[in-house]
């Protein structure tokens, strides 16, 4: 099942207990935190603060979240299973700079899970530092950098479930990769209560998937104006 933005239950997002629920700090701590929050914002003239928490909601936690270590939190790009999407040789017109992209953030046990470069790109892959520059073939949805940006060939209709199928990793309402527990998703800062695998990968979307304790949720992502695709034949 595929969702679009109109199908996200928006009203429910404001009352999502996983986001709002937290043990409130004591008043002095709260006052200091509030002052520091205000001071930070004062130094950013003219900024629309698009990375703010969705809907101006109170953050569940103001503590930093680190990128995890180990293969569970830094999984590889997979061996490219064939879920029915074509994997075409790189270098054609459709490999020109990608025009559509989605940003996906994954969290497990309050750690950032890296979405690796090379998903949807057939081995042997050609890498350059953190980036994948080429490979045997490329699928209509793929990653060339480990930043969570999912590149889409314009016109591609795919879901988060499709991405995980291409990646060769598990995703369900009670499992994210090798982590088990209730899985929660946000689309453009709004809680999505449908099946997480059914969330549509639409251009410009910011999708956050969390298993485990709550984390702050970004509502938007500033995509590079010229795209991120760096695939070369």
């Amino acid at each position, binding site marked *: 099942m595929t969702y679009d933005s109109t199908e996200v239950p928006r009203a429910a997002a404001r009352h999502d207990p996983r986001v709002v629920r937290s043990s409130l700090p004591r008043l002095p701590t709260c006052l200091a935190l509030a002052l520091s929050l205000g001071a930070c914002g004062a130094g950013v003239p003219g900024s629309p*603060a698009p990375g703010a928490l969705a809907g101006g909601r109170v953050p569940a936690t103001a503590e930093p*979240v680190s990128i995890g270590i180990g293969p569970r939190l830094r999984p590889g790009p997979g061996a490219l299973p064939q879920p029915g999407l074509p994997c075409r040789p790189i270098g054609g017109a459709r490999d020109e700079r990608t025009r559509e992209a989605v940003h996906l953030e994954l*969290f497990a046990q309050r750690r950032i899970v890296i979405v690796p470069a090379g998903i949807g790109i057939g081995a042997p892959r050609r890498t350059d530092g953190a980036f994948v520059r080429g490979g045997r073939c490329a699928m209509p949805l793929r990653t060339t950098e480990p930043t969570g940006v999912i590149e889409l060939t314009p016109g591609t209709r795919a879901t988060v479930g499709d991405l995980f199928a291409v990646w060769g990793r598990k995703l369900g309402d009670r499992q994210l990769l090798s982590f088990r527990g209730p899985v929660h998703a946000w689309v453009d800062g709004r809680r999505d209560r449908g099946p997480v695998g059914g969330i549509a990968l639409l251009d410009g979307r910011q999708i956050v998937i969390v298993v485990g304790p709550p984390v702050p949720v970004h509502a938007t992502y500033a995509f590079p104006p010229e795209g991120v695709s760096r695939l070369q034949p």
Partner: protein
Amino acid sequence: MPSLRRLTCLVLLAASAAAGAPAAARADGDPASDVLLSQSVFYPYAPNKVPDDLQTALDAQLKAAKAKGYELKVALIAAQTDMGSVPQLFTAPQKYADLLTSEIAFNTKPRVLVVLPSGLGGNNLGGKAGDALGPVQVDPGAGAAGLARAALQAIGALTRANGTPVPVPALASQTGKPGDGGGDGGGPSPLLVFGLPVLLVALVAGGAILRDRRREEDEEQEDDGGSPADENGGEEAAAEDAATESAGQDPAREHGGPPADPQ
């Protein structure tokens, strides 16, 4: 009165969150943190490309510093689109450095240097880092190349202060504009910057020469008996010449010169 305290707390937090959200940016979302796990430098996205020679110099300098025991992660941020979900930190280098450090730390203390048009920020750079970085300035008008040059100078200063100096390449002291150094700096083309004024000067000079030649021709015709168009006299013609010039008309047509279309 726990409920009152909770309410007060919520109001304070909500008000401060509304005043500015940067402190709420406490999770993944900036591309540099992910890229720096696998390499030493995060370079800005196109069109703010760091010229190749500067990239080569910066990579080599960091390699030399690492060989001397001073490993460092550097993020060059040229635009808000280099910051993903935290563009609001674009004018707050130290806050961004703090966020970046917390993301890639995981029980370590990585040396982190961020270079933005608005300045530098960093963490775990050594006790003398503040003094060392004091003289380093970012030229905000020099685009991505300016960021790279500031990084080269900063790394030189930091390693010197740490007792493990690495040389600063000559490229670091160039005062170029975007696009210098053989790469695409994302700014206006040098052809446009330097060529346009030259073209304007040439046009003005050409116009003056043409006008003088026509005036000479008019004077010659006057000497030969004149024409009906010249009955007003030379001074009035000159005044009219100036008036028509300022109105953007063709003085040659006004002064009885050859028509644009003889038919």
